[in-house]
C-alpha cells in the first residue's frame, strides 16, 4: 500500500527531526536551569524551547504519534505559561520536563511500547505546575491516602503490564483496544496495516478496578483537567520515591520478579542507539566544511608562489644572456692587463676584481641551481597539496550531500492535502530521488519547490469537472523530477498539464503597471514575455495572481535560486500546461569566475552568467533609439560600459581603440554586453561574504581572495542587468561623441588643495575634452583667474589661504569677469553651508558624497 509506505518514510524522517529537536530542547532546558540557579530569566532560550516543543507537536501529529503529541502539548503549555510569567521556574519542574523528554525519546525509539501511565503522570504533573498548584507531589500523595488499597493494587498491575505488554496482549487478545490512537483517526491510521494497529494498541488492560482503567484510557492523549490523580499516585507508589517521574522510561530495569519479557524492549532501544551513522551537529559540520574550503585558497596561494619562483628563475636567464655578451669584454681585459706593464699595485687590484668576478659567476650559477631545486620541490609539494586538498574537499562535500528524497518526501502529503482541499485529482510523480545534493542547497530549495508545486495545484491544474469539459484526462499529472546534467549541476523540473500561463494577460498587466511600454510589449519575444512573471512588480498584482496564477512569490523563487548560483526558466503552453526548469549546482563550495579588469581594478564575474567574452570593433557599436547596442549572432543587445554600471569614476579618457573587449552577461534570457578593459582569465574562486556591516551592496555579490592574497569583488550579475535598465547609464556612452563637439575649447579652472581630488576632477573634465588648469588653493586660483581666461571655475570649499566661499566672493567682485560660473565641490553637506555657498554667489554646489562624474559634467554643461 502506497500510503502505508509513505507513513513509514515520514516516520523515519520524523525520528530524525524529533531527536534533533529533543537535543535542542534538553540543552536549552539545561541552560534555563542554570540561569534559574543564578536567579535570571532567560526569555530567549525560553522562546527556543517553546518553538521547538510546538514544532515537535505539529510534526508528531503529522505522523500520528499521539503520545508524543500529548506530551509536547503539555510542554508547550508549561512553556507558554512561563513566558507569560504566570508561573516561575522550579527545580522540580525541570525534573519533570527532563523526564518527559526522556519518555519522548523512549517512545521514539520504540513507538510500539506502551507508556500510557507514564505519559499520564507527566501530563498531570505538568498540568499541576502550569496551574501553579504548589507541591503537586505532596498533594498526590495525600490524595492517594484516601484510597490506598485500590491504588496499590492498580499500580502493581499497571507496572507488570507496562513491562510485559506482549505477554498481556497474547493472553488477552480480545481485550486489547486501540486506545492510543483512538482520538486521532486520520487517514494514515485507517490505512496502516493491521499488524501495525495491533502493535500500537497494546494496552495494559487486564484487571480491575474498572474505574481506573477507564480513566487511564481517557487520558491517553487528550487533556482532561478534571481527571483524578490516581495514575500519578500509582507512579509515586510504584517508584517509591518522593518525586518519581525521573525514572520513567520503559527501558528502566524494574526489579519486578515476573517481568521476564522486559528485556525485549530494552534490547531494541540499545540496537537503535548503536547505528552505523553518527549524528553531528550541522553547525560543527558547516564550520568544518568552511575550514576545508579555506584550504582551497591555500592551494591557490601555493600555485601563485610557484609561479613567482618560476618568474625569478627566468631572471637568471636574463643574467646569463648578459653574461655571455660581457664575457668577451671581460676576457679581453684579462688578456690586456696581463700583457701590459701596469703598476704592481694595480695588478693586484685587477686580480682581486678578476677573482671576484669569477666567484660571482659561480655563485650566481649555484644560486640558480638552488632555486631550480626549490622549484622542483615546490612543484611537487604543490601537486600533492592540490590533490590532497581537492580530495579532502570532495570528501567533505560528499559528507554534506543528501539524497533528494530527504527533501522530496515532504511533498506527496502536501500535494495530496492541497488536492483534497480543492477537489482536484492529481497523479504526483517524483523521479530522481536518489540524486545527491549538498544539504545546504537542499535546504534552500525547500521553499522554492514548495511554492512552485503549490502554484501548479492552486492555479495551473483545473478541477476534475473543468478537465472533463476540456476533454482532458480526468486525472491531472504533476511531475517533480531531478536529474544530473553537466557534472556538477542538476536539473529540477516541475511539470503540470494544467491550463498554462496566459501570456497576453501577463503582457497587458505589465504594460498597465508601467513595467514595459506598449511598444516594447508588442516586440516582446515569447521568452521575454514569460520572463515577466518573475518580476516583482508583477507578482504583487492580485489580478494576475487571480487570473493566471503564477504570480505571487515567483520573484522570490527566482532570487533564491539565483543566490544558489542557479537559474530558473519557465515554459508554458496555453491549455497544455506549464514547465518550470530549475538548474542548480550540486555543491556550493567552489565556483568558477572570470577575472576582469576595469581601470586597474579587478573584478570577478561568476562563469554561470557569462554568455561569452569577445572583441568587437568599436565602430560596430550602433545606437538604436538613443541606446548603444551591438549585435550577437544577429540579435541586437544593449551595450554599456561596466564601469558606468558600477559607478566607477573614469580616471582617464578612453583611447579611441579599434577594438573593445566585451563580456556578454545573461540572466534568465536577458542579455547585455558590457565593455571591460581586459579579461584576464578564468579560475576557481571561493565566494565569501562581505562581512556583517556590508549586508547587501548593490551590484556586488561578495568577494573572493586570489592566490596572491588580493581581495577581488565579485559582481552580482542579476543586479547589473537591472541597473542597465536605468536610462541615464545607457545615454552616457552614446552621448560621448556629441559632448566632444560642445565642450571643445572651453577652459576650466580647478581649485583644490588635495592632489587626489584635483587629479580626479582634472581627469573627469579632460575626458570630456575641456581644457583644464589647476590651482592648489584659493589664492593661487584667484591669481590664475586674474591672469588667464576661464569659462568656468570649479573649486573646493575647504582650502588653505583662501577658501572656496572667499574665492567665489572675490570672483564675483571682479569687474571684468565677475559673471564667470563657479561650481563649489565640497564635503560640507549642511544646509547652512549650502546657503553660504549660494550667498557667496556660487552657481552650483556639489556635495562630494554624491560626487560622480556625470553629475559634475551635467552641471558644467548646463552652465556653459
Amino acid at each position, binding site marked *: 500500500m502506497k500510503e502505508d509506505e509513505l507513513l513509514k518514510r515520514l516516520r523515519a524522517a520524523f525520528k530524525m527531526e524529533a531527536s534533533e529537536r529533543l537535543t535542542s530542547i534538553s540543552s536549552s532546558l539545561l541552560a534555563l536551569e542554570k540561569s534559574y540557579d543564578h536567579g535570571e530569566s532567560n526569555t530567549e532560550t525560553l522562546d527556543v524551547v517553546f518553538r521547538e516543543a510546538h514544532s515537535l507537536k505539529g510534526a508528531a501529529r503529522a505522523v500520528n504519534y499521539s503520545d508524543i503529541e500529548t506530551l509536547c502539548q503539555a510542554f508547550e503549555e508549561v512553556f507558554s505559561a512561563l513566558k507569560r510569567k504566570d508561573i516561575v521556574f522550579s527545580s522540580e519542574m525541570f525534573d519533570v520536563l527532563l523526564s518527559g523528554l526522556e519518555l519522548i525519546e523512549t517512545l521514539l525509539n520504540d513507538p510500539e511500547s506502551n507508556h500510557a501511565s507514564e505519559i499520564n503522570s507527566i501530563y498531570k504533573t505538568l498540568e499541576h505546575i502550569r496551574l501553579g498548584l504548589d507541591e503537586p507531589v505532596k498533594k498526590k500523595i495525600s490524595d492517594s491516602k484516601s484510597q490506598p488499597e485500590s491504588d496499590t493494587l492498580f499500580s502493581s498491575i499497571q507496572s507488570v503490564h507496562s513491562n510485559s505488554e506482549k505477554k498481556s496482549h497474547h493472553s488477552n487478545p480480545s481485550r486489547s483496544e486501540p486506545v492510543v490512537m483512538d482520538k486521532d483517526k486520520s487517514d494514515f491510521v485507517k490505512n496502516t496495516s493491521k499488524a501495525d494497529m495491533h502493535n500500537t494498541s497494546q494496552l495494559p488492560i487486564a484487571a480491575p478496578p474498572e474505574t481506573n482503567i477507564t480513566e487511564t484510557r481517557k487520558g491517553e492523549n487528550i487533556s482532561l483537567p478534571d481527571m483524578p490523580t490516581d495514575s500519578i499516585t500509582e507512579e509515586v507508589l510504584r517508584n517509591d520515591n518522593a518525586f518519581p517521574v525521573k525514572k520513567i522510561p520503559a527501558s528502566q530495569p524494574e526489579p519486578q520478579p515476573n517481568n521476564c519479557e522486559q528485556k525485549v524492549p530494552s534490547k531494541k532501544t540499545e540496537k537503535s542507539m548503536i547505528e552505523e551513522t553518527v549524528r553531528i551537529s550541522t553547525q560543527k559540520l558547516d564550520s568544518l566544511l568552511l575550514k576545508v574550503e579555506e584550504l582551497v585558497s591555500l592551494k591557490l596561494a601555493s600555485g601563485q608562489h610557484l609561479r613567482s619562483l618560476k618568474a625569478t628563475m627566468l631572471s637568471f636567464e636574463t643574467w646569463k644572456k648578459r653574461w655571455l655578451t660581457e664575457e668577451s669584454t671581460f676576457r679581453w681585459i684579462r688578456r690586456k692587463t696581463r700583457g701590459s706593464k701596469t703598476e704592481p699595485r694595480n695588478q693586484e687590484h685587477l686580480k682581486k676584481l678578476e677573482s671576484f668576478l669569477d666567484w660571482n659567476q659561480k655563485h650566481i650559477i649555484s644560486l640558480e641551481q638552488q632555486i631550480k631545486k626549490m622549484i622542483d620541490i615546490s612543484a611537487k609539494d604543490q601537486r600533492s597539496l592540490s590533490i590532497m586538498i581537492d580530495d579532502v574537499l570532495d570528501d567533505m562535500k560528499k559528507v554534506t550531500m543528501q539524497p533528494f528524497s530527504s527533501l522530496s518526501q515532504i511533498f506527496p502529503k502536501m500535494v495530496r492535502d492541497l488536492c483534497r482541499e480543492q477537489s482536484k485529482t492529481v497523479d504526483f510523480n517524483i523521479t530522481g530521488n536518489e540524486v545527491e545534493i549538498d544539504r545546504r542547497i537542499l535546504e534552500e530549495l525547500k521553499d522554492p519547490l514548495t511554492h512552485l508545486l503549490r502554484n501548479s495545484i492552486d492555479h495551473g491544474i483545473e478541477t476534475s469537472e473543468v478537465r472533463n469539459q476540456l476533454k482532458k484526462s480526468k486525472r491531472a499529472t504533476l511531475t517533480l523530477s531531478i536529474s544530473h546534467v553537466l557534472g556538477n549541476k542538476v536539473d529540477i523540473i516541475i511539470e503540470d498539464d494544467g491550463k498554462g500561463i496566459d501570456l497576453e494577460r501577463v503582457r497587458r498587466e505589465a504594460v498597465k503597471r508601467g513595467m514595459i511600454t506598449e511598444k516594447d510589449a508588442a516586440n516582446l519575444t515569447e521568452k521575454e514575455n514569460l520572463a515577466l512573471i518573475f518580476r516583482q512588480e508583477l507578482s504583487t498584482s492580485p489580478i494576475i495572481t487571480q487570473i493566471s496564477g503564477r504570480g505571487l512569490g515567483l520573484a522570490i523563487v527566482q532570487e533564491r535560486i539565483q543566490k544558489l548560483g542557479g537559474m530558473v526558466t519557465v515554459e508554458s503552453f496555453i491549455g497544455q500546461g506549464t514547465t518550470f526548469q530549475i538548474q542548480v549546482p550540486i555543491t556550493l563550495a567552489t565556483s568558477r569566475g572570470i577575472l576582469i579588469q576595469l581601470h586597474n*581594478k579587478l573584478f570577478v564575474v561568476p562563469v554561470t552568467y557569462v554568455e561569452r567574452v569577445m572583441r568587437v570593433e568599436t565602430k560596430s557599436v550602433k545606437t538604436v533609439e538613443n541606446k548603444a547596442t551591438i549585435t550577437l549572432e544577429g540579435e541586437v543587445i544593449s551595450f554599456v560600459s561596466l564601469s558606468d554600471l558600477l559607478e566607477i569614476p573614469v580616471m582617464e579618457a578612453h583611447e579611441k581603440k579599434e577594438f573593445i573587449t566585451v563580456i556578454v552577461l545573461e540572466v534568465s534570457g536577458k542579455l547585455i554586453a558590457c565593455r571591460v578593459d581586459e579579461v584576464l582569465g578564468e579560475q576557481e574562486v571561493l565566494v565569501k561574504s562581505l562581512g556583517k*556591516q556590508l549586508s547587501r*551592496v548593490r551590484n*556586488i555579490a561578495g568577494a573572493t581572495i586570489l592566490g596572491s592574497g*588580493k*581581495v577581488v*569583488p565579485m559582481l552580482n550579475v542579476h543586479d547589473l542587468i537591472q541597473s542597465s535598465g536605468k536610462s541615464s547609464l545607457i545615454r552616457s556612452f552614446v552621448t560621448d561623441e556629441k559632448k566632444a563637439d560642445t565642450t571643445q575649447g572651453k577652459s576650466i579652472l580647478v581649485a583644490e588643495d*588635495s592632489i587626489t581630488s584635483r587629479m580626479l576632477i582634472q581627469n573627469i573634465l579632460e575626458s570630456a575634452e575641456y581644457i583644464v588648469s589647476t590651482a592648489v588653493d584659493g589664492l593661487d586660483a584667484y591669481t590664475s583667474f586674474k591672469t588667464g581666461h576661464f569659462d568656468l571655475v570649479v573649486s573646493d570649499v575647504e582650502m588653505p589661504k583662501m577658501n572656496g566661499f572667499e574665492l567665489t566672493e572675490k570672483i564675483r567682485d571682479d569687474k571684468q569677469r565677475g559673471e564667470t560660473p563657479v561650481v563649489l565641490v565640497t564635503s560640507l553637506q549642511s544646509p547652512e553651508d549650502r546657503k553660504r555657498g549660494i550667498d557667496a554667489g556660487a552657481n552650483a554646489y556639489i556635495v*562630494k558624497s554624491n560626487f560622480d562624474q556625470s553629475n559634475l559634467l551635467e552641471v558644467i554643461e548646463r552652465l556653459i
Partner: protein
Amino acid sequence: MREEINDLFQQKETTKMVLKKRAKDLAIQKDKKDNVGASIEVVIFVLSQEKYAIELNYIREVYPLKDLTPLPCTPSFVSGIINVRSQIVSIIDLKKFFDLSDHDSDSNQRIIILHSQKMEFGILADAIIGVKSIPLKTIQMSMLTLQGIGADYIKGVTENRTVILDAEKMLTDPKIVVHEELKV
C-alpha cells in the same frame, strides 16, 4: 596588685579596640578607593590629528592597513574591504562617517577591527598610540561642542582631550550598515 592587673588588662583591651578601629577604618578607605579607581581599558589612536579612544572590549584586533580593495557602489564612508587571515573585513573611514575635515588622507596606517556578536568592521586610524587605562572619574561627560561628530557617538572626553568614542553605539547603529536593494 589585682587592680593593676585589671588596669593592665583594660589597657590592653583599649589598645586592641583602637587597633581594631584603625584597621576597620583603613579597610573602608581601601574599599572606597577601589570604587573611585574604577577605570576602562582603551586603545588610543589618532584621527585627523586628534586623539580618540575606544574601549578594549569592543576591539578584536589591530591590523596593519595593506591591500585595501575599494568597493564600488558603496557609501563614501566605506573605504573598502581587506583580507584578514582569509576573512573579508569591511573598512570604514570615520572621518567620512563623522564628516571630519580630511587633513591628510594618505596617512592611514592601521585598522582597528571592532566587533560585537552581531556586527564587525574595521575603522581606519592614522596611528595607534597604545593601550591605556582611563579612570572613570577623569572622563568628562559634558563637552565642548565638537564639530562634525554627533554627540551620540561620544562617551566623553578626558582631561588631556582624548575623545572616547562609544563603540557600542557604532556597532549597533543601523546607519553604518549597508543594505541596499536595487531599485529600478
